[in-house]
């Protein structure tokens, strides 16, 4: 045991196309230490997103068609959550060879492009491709102290080894009892559980129970065998489906998130309702927890 290695660092490289064998490390008897500048939690990943619409484009008016051009993008993201609830987030736009370019015939835009955004505290700094600061703005990113407390609370309930194992494998089976408790206490917590068969349930409850002020209802789709969140749905007060989100995980020893698919109610300028679908592929997910 090394005194200097007091940090419990759970670091994982999760490559979506390359599931690597890993060596489980022993963290027993290690103490927890965190310097003032070190994040309680950090996440980084590359996200490639494609956006399209469920609609027959050739039947749309010009104005509606103008709202539904397909697009894609790639961004590299790093988020750090600190013990005081503040975050630091870096977002970098990345070019890639599958980028959709609509061949507009207008003269090019010569204005400086924001290539990177760094938000820390309530300040956002915007940089060009050469790292030159273009501008700064105050941005009221919410404080996440409640989430910090919940994460720190984990330490009181499980061992370092259990935490480490979960972070390394992204496999929640070891914590299936927590899910069972959640299901068993559903009635008293105003949660409607519905068995969907095939080891899946849905849990319906008002979002205000977790996010005060929200008026929508959510339905969680949970795999009770693997202790995984498979998807979420959001309904408005009229029980109209606003959004359906589905999560895809890698198979094998590392069951990391590999994609998020979102179907979202979308109003065209003419008032016609359609659904926008977004696929986000997640690559190179790194997750560090430092409690």
């Amino acid at each position: 045991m090394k005194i200097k290695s007091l940090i419990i660092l759970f670091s994982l490289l999760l490559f979506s196309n390359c599931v690597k064998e890993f060596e489980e490390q022993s963290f027993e008897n290690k103490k927890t230490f965190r310097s003032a500048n070190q994040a309680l939690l950090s996440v980084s990943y590359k996200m490639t997103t494609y956006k399209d619409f469920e609609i027959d484009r050739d039947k749309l008016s010009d104005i509606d068609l103008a709202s539904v051009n397909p697009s894609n993008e790639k961004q590299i993201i790093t988020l750090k959550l600190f013990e005081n609830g503040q975050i630091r987030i870096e977002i970098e736009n990345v070019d890639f060879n599958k980028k959709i370019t609509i061949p507009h015939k207008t003269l090019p835009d010569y204005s400086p492009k924001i290539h990177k955004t760094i938000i820390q505290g309530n300040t956002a700094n915007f940089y060009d491709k050469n790292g030159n600061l273009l501008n700064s703005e105050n941005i009221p990113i919410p404080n996440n102290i409640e989430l910090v407390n919940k994460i720190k609370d984990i330490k009181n309930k499980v061992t370092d080894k259990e935490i480490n194992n979960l972070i390394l494998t992204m496999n929640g089976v070891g914590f299936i009892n927590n899910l069972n408790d959640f299901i068993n206490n559903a009635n008293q917590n105003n949660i409607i559980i519905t068995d969907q068969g095939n080891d899946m349930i849905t849990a319906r409850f008002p979002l205000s129970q977790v996010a005060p002020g929200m008026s929508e209802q959510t339905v969680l789709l949970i795999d009770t065998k693997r202790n995984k969140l498979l998807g979420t749905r959001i309904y408005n007060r009229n029980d109209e489906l606003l959004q359906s989100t589905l999560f895809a995980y890698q198979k094998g020893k590392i069951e990391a998130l590999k994609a998020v698919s979102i179907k979202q109610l979308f109003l065209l300028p003419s008032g016609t309702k359609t659904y926008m679908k977004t696929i986000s592929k997640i690559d190179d997910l790194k997750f560090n927890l430092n409690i």
Partner: protein
Amino acid sequence: MKKLVYTSILFVFVFISNLNAQQRNVIWVHGLGDDETCWAHYEQIFSNELNINSLRESYGTGNGITPAAYQVINSINSHYGYTQANNPNNLAIGHSMGGLMIRETDRVLNGSSKKIGGYITVTTPNYGAPIANSLLDGSVTNAAQDACNKISDGPLSELLPLPWTIVTNLTTDVLCDSFIDNDLISSLQGSPTTNEDLKDGSPKIDAINNYNLNINQNIPRISIWAEENSPVHWRMISSDLYDNDQTFVNYVNLARAAYNGFYIYNTTMAIVTGVAGFWNPWLWGLTATYTYRATQWKKGRNWIDDSENIWSALIKTTRSEQIQVYELVYVPDDDYDDCVAYAGDDYWPGDCGDWEWQWVTKWVSINYPSDGLLPEYTQIMQDNPTPNNVYRVDSANHLEVTDMSNSPQGDLTRIQFNNIFDRPSGDFFRID
């Protein structure tokens, strides 16, 4: 005798000098909802540089093209007097609707009563202004409401009190309002009568064009058209708000980055709570919340990305075309069937396949050149026998074309006027 010869020579010299020194009458006419200050910049420059006698006044434009044209006629009569008012060398220059007002003066007057011998239309809707059609059929109002909703959804989902700084400065009060509700749009909107005159397919504009096509084909006329850089709509609004076409574009870029910041923040927090939910499934409720908020912010960000396209559709400078793009398509694994059998029909088999880029053909909306308000085609008069009758002002929008002194590209309108006034000797548009 010798004295008589000298006197005659002197007389001829003075006569020729007077001929050369005779001022050219130039009538500068503003457009819809504008006033005499519209052409102040170039009128002053060329009044100093050239031998011209300028007329620059304000006209009411709320009652349509013809009443405005008669105001121009009256103004010419009172400014130049009887003899000069009907001078066939009189040159008129009209911006936007002002170009149609000038053309209408030519149409409604006959023979020697005509006030102008030739004209230059500058970013004029010679074949109608499609924005007028969009205003009349309610498309602009619908697009405005849609814009405001999409811009507001992110901040509202975040439960952030409105207005907060960036919203105040960059979004709802400016983006949304400027897009539709600000003074610029109000002035563009004009009166219903004028809109009817200016719309694509207007009988008034048809009459003006038919007059040139069938009756007065040979009147010297030139079109100056402007082509703005992308994003054309924000540049035009920037010219309205800040007298340059860049400041507002920078603000919008900041707003876009801020919206993207919130989108990514919420997406990442959804990932975090998705993992933390293993320990505490309640946190999966937060996953749902963060995901929902992320998409609300993304909706606003996407609207900013698409807004030029939407605006261009309102001014009818888009075309639907098929192009090939990369699409992310779900491809099932070999064990896909087993996976579905395990999970049942309702299960989303995301784990049993992957997404791959595939080359597909899609209909898309493509923007074509405009000055931010008028398409290229309507700015240029067709069937025009005047040689070299089209001049283009690069990187100019509909508003700034009447004063490009603040343009980073330089005063390109002035350059085009110089080119016109420098045409060969004997050309109607040449001014010495």
